[in-house]
C-alpha cells in the first residue's frame, strides 16, 4: 500500500530553477505542481488545494505577496506558504509574513534546505 504524496505547488517563473527545485522536491517525496506565473497559480488553486505552496515573491501577473493574500483572505486556506525571495527584499518578506506566510527562504536557494523547510511546515499541520 503506497502513501499519498503531499501535493506541493511550486510557483517560480525561472524555468531552470523551477526544474531544479522540482527535481529535488520530487526526489524528496512530494508531488510538485509547477506554475510559471500568477494566472497558472490561480487556475491550479481553483481546481486543487495543495498541501503546501512554495512561491517566488516576484512573478508575472501575480506576486508572491498577492498569492499569500489570495490564499489567506479569498480562499480562506490555512495551508503553509513558503516564500522564496532574493537578497535585499526583506520588506516584501515582512509584508508576506504579515499577510500570513509561514516561512521564507532567500536566493541563492539551497535545494536541500528548501526540502527541510517544506517538511517542517507540513509537519506542523
Amino acid at each position, binding site marked *: 500500500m503506497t502513501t499519498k504524496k503531499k501535493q506541493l505547488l511550486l510557483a517560480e517563473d*525561472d*524555468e*531552470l*530553477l523551477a*526544474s*531544479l527545485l*522540482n*527535481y*529535488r522536491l520530487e*526526489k524528496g517525496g512530494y508531488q510538485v505542481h509547477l506554475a510559471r506565473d500568477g494566472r497558472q497559480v490561480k487556475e491550479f488553486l481553483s481546481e486543487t488545494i495543495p498541501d503546501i505552496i512554495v512561491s517566488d515573491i516576484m512573478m508575472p501577473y501575480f506576486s508572491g505577496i498577492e498569492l499569500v493574500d489570495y490564499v489567506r483572505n479569498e480562499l480562506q486556506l490555512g495551508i503553509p506558504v513558503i516564500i522564496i525571495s532574493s537578497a535585499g527584499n526583506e520588506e516584501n518578506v515582512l509584508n508576506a509574513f504579515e499577510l500570513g506566510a509561514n516561512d521564507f527562504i532567500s*536566493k*541563492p*536557494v*539551497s*535545494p*536541500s*534546505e528548501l526540502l527541510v523547510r517544506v517538511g517542517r511546515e507540513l509537519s506542523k499541520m
Partner: protein
Amino acid sequence: MGIGKVTYLTIVPLAPKIHPDLLWNLTMLFSGLGILYLLFVFIFRNRLAHKAKGIRERKRELGPMISNFLFFEDDASLQEKYDYVQLKLEIRELLKDNFNRKVLVEILLDLQKDISGDARQRLFNLYRNLGLHLDAFDKLKSRRWEVISRGILELTQLQVEESYSSIKKFINHKRGVIRKQAQLATVSLKHEGITYFLDTCKYRISEWQQLKLLDIIRNLEDFQPPRFKAWLTSKNGDVVLFALRLIKYYKQNDANTSLMVLVKHKNDQIKIEAINCIKEFCVFEALHILKAVFWNCRPHVKLLVLDALADLGGEGELIFLKSIENKENNFMVKSKALSAINTISPGAVMPTKDIEFIRPYEEQQEEMTDAIAPVAEEPTKEMIPDFDPGTENQDGKMLIEGPEGPQEAVHKLHEHEVPGEKITEPEPEISEYGEETPKETAPDPSEQPKENKVEIAPVVEQPDKNLGELTLDVEEYMEESAPEFEVTGMHDGEQAYWEAVLDPENEDVEIFEICLLEELQDILTEAERPDESYSDDEILPLNFLPIIEEDPKGKDKKEKIPEHIVEMEVDGEMVHEDEKFRVELDSILQRIRGSEEKGEEDTVVDFLPLVAGSETSSDTDKEEVGPEQPIREFNVDYKEVRAIPEEPEMAFSLGPTRTSLEELPAKNPGLMEVFFEEEEPPLAEMSCDKSIEKGASDLSRLLDERVSIFNELFKTCDAESKLILLDEILAVGDEKDLRFLDTLGADEDSRVRKKALTIKKKLGDFLKRNRKENERMNADHLHGEAPENDDISGADVKKEEPDTPNSPAKELSNDLTALEYRLLAEKNIKTSRTSGILDVDFELTPLEEAQSQNLGGAISESSFLYDILSIPSKIIQKLNG
C-alpha cells in the same frame, strides 16, 4: 495630355533640369536600399529570436539533465544509477555540439546564481567534469577583448582555480575591462590573489573596483587576510589607499608607525584614511603629528584631524585647539575646534552667539528690593508733560486720586487691565527679549501719603507749550468696575491714548507695564530736577518791579491765560535760579511780610516767578517800565491787587505790571523802602509834588544799579574764581556789593561763605570810612579848604565830579569798571586788588598803601580812568627799575 504637361519644372521654375529617367533610377535605388535594410533587420532579428528560442528550448531539455547530475547520489537505486549512466552518455553526445556546450555553460552560469550549498559545488564540479572549462581557457587566448573577458568571467564564476595563473597575467592588461575582470578573478580564485594583485598592480584602482574587490574578499571562505601594512610602502597610491582600507576593515593595528607617516602624505585620500585608521586604532602617539600637519591640510582634512584630536586628545591639546579657534578663518574648522574642546573638556566653550546678558537672579532680587523702598517713599507728585492744556479739566490739573499714591494707582490700573491677573510678584521678569522688566510693587501702606490728590509739580514753561498739572482721578477709577478708567482733564487724544494703553485686551501686558512705569519714572525724575531742563531764555528775568495790576485789560488778558498756569503751584526749586531776581525778590518779600506783621498794610503781593510767554512780551514789559516811560504809566489798582486771594498756592496774575509810583508809598511803604534805601531818601518821604519824571528816572537808575556787577560773574565761575572775585569786591566794591555779599552767605562752598562775610565786614568798614572822609572833604571844600593831595588821582577826579549817582562821569566809571571786570572774567584773567590793566611790579609802602586805601573807594569808582591817568607815572617807574 493636359496632365502630362504639368512637370516639376512648371511648378518650380528655378529647379535644375534633371532628366526624369535619372530621378526614377535614383528613386528605385534608394527604395531598394531601404527594403534591403529592413530585410536585413528582419532577418537578423528572426535569427536572434530563433537562436534564443533554440537556447531556451535546449535549456528546457538540458535543465532536468543537469538536475539529475547535480542531485545524483551514490546510494541511489540501481535504476537511478542506470539512468544516470544513460544520461551521461547522452550528454556527452550533446557536448560535441558547440551550441549545446554554450547552452550548458549558460545553464550552469544561471544556476550558480540561484542555488547554494552542496548543489552549487556539484555544479562547479559538473562544469569541470564536462570539460567546459577548457573552452574558457581557449577564450583567454583569444585576441578579442570581449572573448577574453567572457572566458575570465566563466572561469571566475564557476570557480576554476586552475585558471588562476592564466588569469593573473591580465591584471595589468592595457584594456581596462580585461584588467578589472582579471583583478576580480585573481582575488576571488585564490586567497593569495589579493597579495599578488597588491604587489603587481600598476594601474589605478577605481573606487568601484575597490568596493568590488573588498566585497569579494570579505565573502571569501576561510580567508586569512595578509598584513596589509606591507603595501603601505607601495608606490601605487591606490594600492596604499586600498591597503589602508583593508587595514581598517580587518582592524590590523600593527601599522601605527606607517600610519603616522602617511598622515603627512600629499594625497588627501591617503591622509584621510590614515587619520581614520589612527582614530580607529587610538594611536595616541600620532597626536603631535596630527597637530603638526593640521595647518597644512585642507579644510575637510582639518575637520578629520580635529575629530581625531577630540577622540584621542587630552587637556594638552586644548591650547592647540584654542589657537585654532583664534587663527583659523574657516567657520567649519573653527566650529569643529570648539566642538573638540568641548569634547575634551565638556563645558569649556559655551554658546556666545546671540546670548543676552542677564544678571544673576540674586542681583535682580536685591535690586528690586532696593528699588521698592524708594518708590514707596517717592513724593506723590506726578507730572505728565506734553499735555494739551486746552483740553484739560477745569482746574487745569490732571489728578491721580487714590489712597495709595501714584505708584499704587498705576498698579491698580495694571490689575484692572488684566482681569484676574494680579501683579503682586516682586520678582523681576524676563521679557521675551531677555530684558529685565522690573515690576513696581505696592509700597508699604504705612509709608503712603495720605494725600489723595497727586499734583504734578509745577512747570515753568511757555504757556503755549501745553503744560499743566495732570491729575488722574484714581478714586473715580477705582469705584468703577469697568476696565476702562477715566482720566480727568484729558482731551480726546489723550483719552484715546490712555484707553488704548490700558485696554485689557492688549496682548502684551508686560510691555505696557514697562512703558507706563518707565514713563512715570521719567516724569518723576524730570520733576525732581527741573533746573536742568529749563534755560534762561524760558524764564523772564525780573529786573523790574513785579507789581501786579488787574485792570479790565489785564483781566481780559488773565482770562486768556490757560487755567493750568493760573492754578499752577509754584515750587521754589523749580524756578530758575536767577540771583538778580531772587535777591531782590527775597528782600522784597521779607520786607512786605515784615510790614504785614506790623499791621501797617494788609496788602499781599505774592510774587511768583512769572512765566515768560515769549521774549517779546518780556521786552515789552521792560520797556513799559523803562526810564523813558513816564511814571504815570505805573498804574496800580491796589484794590484789584488785594482781591487776589492769599492762597498757599499763590495764584498770580500775568497782567500788566505798570503801576503808579504816586500810589506806591502810601500803599506799600515797605516796598518803596526796598528800592530807595541808602542810596536815596525813600520815595515816601519825597514830596509828590516833585517832578514825576525825576522819580521815574531815579527808579530806573535804581533798578539798573541795584545789582552788583559781580552777580553775573559769580553765576558762571567756580569756587576758586569766587574767592578771587571776593578780593576784587573788596577792592572795588560799594554799597550794592554789600547786598550781594549777603547773598553769598548761602553759597554752596563754605570758603566762599566765610570769605564773603569777611569781605563784607571789611568792605562795610571801608565804605563807612570813605563816606566819612568824603563828608569831611566836602565839608572842607565847602569851607574853602584846599585838597591835601595834589596828585591827579581818581580821588581828585571824584572830588571834582559831583558825587551823585546820576552824574555822567560816575555812570561812565561804573560802566567802564563793569566792562573791565566782565572782560577779565570772560578771558579768565585773575585780577588782584592792585591789578589793573597795567600791573605794577613793586610793593607799596605802608604810607602809600594807606593812601591807596584811602583812595580805594574813589579808585574803585573810576579804576579805568585811574589806570589811564597813571600810565605815564608807571612807565617812568618801570624804566627806573
